[in-house]
């Protein structure tokens, strides 16, 4: 990249300008990615972390006419959970009911989502047993709840055994508690979402399971798409990220189109001397890669530092997935944009290097 690096050094202003634009776009994309991951985590963490405790499938009831299968519509009776446990490939099954409720902490009431599980359920976080609950860290922040404190549902007090970062559902802190405690606390599960959580082995066949149990099974990860609020939120943020990435590719492509036009005379001279088109394209692509790496790297760095500072206030996830992956995607798209524009190099006529050429 002999020529490209000299151009970068020589035309600092122009490259700094386009590098700044790339940095700003990357900053926005990384911030949106971190925010989307943070919001997504708040929305579905209680479900997406279930595989950590052995839940390999979630079984939903068949939806009523006009409804879609999933969390919004599932009503699985306890007898159906028992039947599910007897199906081929299922090693264990347990029920989960999801209900909305309110808790009081030192007289302050907060909305929570209650995940009601059987006593000793494999799907519950460690620490959930009669009289003890696990609460989401959101409740810990809002109501200053810590492990060992008590929270009150109506007249029923339960002890907080643990505060978990992964206990959140649709942006509301989750309280994992047993059926007996839920009943004593007056948590209304009748009419709410209920489903079966399954442990399965390699012989599990979802189609056969559906046929025999009349339940629809899907992995926890796949089941997230059935949470309509999560889908809408995630879809909007993803659309914004995709649009920004396309804008980035267009901006880089437009810059290199103009840059190549400005260099037409130099390119003609180099071709007349004997430069191959492939050499010139490789050189210019190297130049684009450096530009994207510096601009994108700077944007990623600023977004990462900003995210680390802001994540106590807004839901923001800083990880390689939310920082490096968007950077790599932006670089790939930017290089594609540059590559399309650099096809112009092939059309430069070396004969035009001669002053009086026709």
């Amino acid at each position, binding site marked *: 990249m002999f020529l490209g690096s000299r151009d970068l050094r020589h035309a600092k202003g122009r490259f700094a300008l386009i590098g700044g634009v790339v940095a700003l776009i990357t900053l926005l994309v990384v911030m949106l990615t971190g925010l989307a991951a943070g919001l997504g985590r708040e929305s579905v963490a209680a479900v997406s972390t279930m595989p950590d405790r052995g839940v390999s499938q979630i079984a939903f009831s068949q939806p009523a006419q006009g409804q879609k299968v999933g969390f919004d519509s599932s009503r699985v009776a306890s007898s159906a959970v028992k039947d599910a446990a007897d199906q081929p490939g299922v090693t264990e099954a347990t029920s989960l009911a999801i209900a909305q409720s309110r808790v009081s902490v030192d007289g302050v009431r907060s909305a929570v989502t209650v995940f009601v599980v059987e006593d000793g359920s494999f799907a519950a976080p460690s620490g959930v047993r009669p009289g003890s609950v696990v609460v989401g860290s959101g409740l810990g922040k809002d109501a200053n709840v810590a492990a060992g404190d008590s929270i009150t549902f109506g007249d029923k007090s339960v002890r907080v055994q643990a505060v978990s970062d992964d206990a959140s559902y649709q942006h509301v802190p989750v309280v994992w508690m047993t059926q007996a405690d839920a009943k004593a606390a007056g948590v209304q599960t009748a009419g709410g979402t209920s489903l079966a959580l399954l442990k399965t082995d390699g012989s599990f066949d979802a189609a056969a399971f559906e046929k025999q149990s009349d339940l629809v099974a899907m992995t926890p990860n796949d089941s997230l798409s059935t949470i309509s609020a999560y889908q809408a939120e995630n879809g909007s943020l993803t659309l914004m990220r995709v649009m920004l990435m396309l804008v980035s590719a267009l901006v880089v492509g437009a810059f290199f189109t103009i840059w190549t036009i400005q260099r037409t005379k130099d390119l003609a001279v180099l*071709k007349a001397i004997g430069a191959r088109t492939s050499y010139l394209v490789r050189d210019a692509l190297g130049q684009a890669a450096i530009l994207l790496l510096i601009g994108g790297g700077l944007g990623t760095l600023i977004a990462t530092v900003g995210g680390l500072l802001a994540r106590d206030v807004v839901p923001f996830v800083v990880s390689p997935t939310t920082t490096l992956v968007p950077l790599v995607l932006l670089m790939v798209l930017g290089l594609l944009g540059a590559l399309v524009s650099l096809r112009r190099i092939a059309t430069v006529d*070396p004969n035009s290097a001669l002053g009086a050429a026709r």
Partner: protein
Amino acid sequence: MSLIVDDAVLTFPDGAGRITAVDHVSLSVGPGEFAAVTGPSGSGKSSLLAVAGLLQTPDSGSVAIGGRVVSGLSRKDAAAVRLSSIGFVFQESNLIASLTAAEQLEAVARLDGRKGKAVQGRAMELLEAVDLKDAASRRPAQLSGGQRQRVGIARALMNSPELLLVDEPTSALDSERSSAVMRLIGDVTRDSGVATLMVTHDLPTLTAVDSVYEMVDGRLSRSERAEAA
């Protein structure tokens, strides 16, 4: 002979018909020989240079460099021949704005996949030969017109070509600098044994050349100036 152009014809589309830019031209230039082609604008001088430099493929006839017929090669092969066997000195030097004088020369070697101390040493040696060693780190904007053209000459010699093609090298220079550049081209031609073909209409500067041809309407003829020289 380093360059033999044999009965070359080059035509261009012109409306419904075609115009003949090079009309059955034959020419040969030997090692260490400095040949010049003069003629009015539009006479086909630059077209002849383009044919000799493999920038244009003649409709008929042939071009041989170093005894090898090279007309009709693919674009890729023609580029390889240009890089290894032909040096170009362009009108107004055509230097790359972002490169220093030394890098202009180094870039040519890099196109051929060569780099390192040997390449840098060769570049400095050539810049010294054109009396520009002290200007090695200057960019074109920091050089005078004559200095730029001298860098262009040094650049053309970087890959030790057999053939030097020179296109109106003095068109942007005053008479004093023009004479100096012409003397330099004559000197490098003889010193390096390269065959040099130059097109120009700057007649007063032709004292350094060995042979002069005149081109009119695409036809080449030996000039009376050559007889005089």
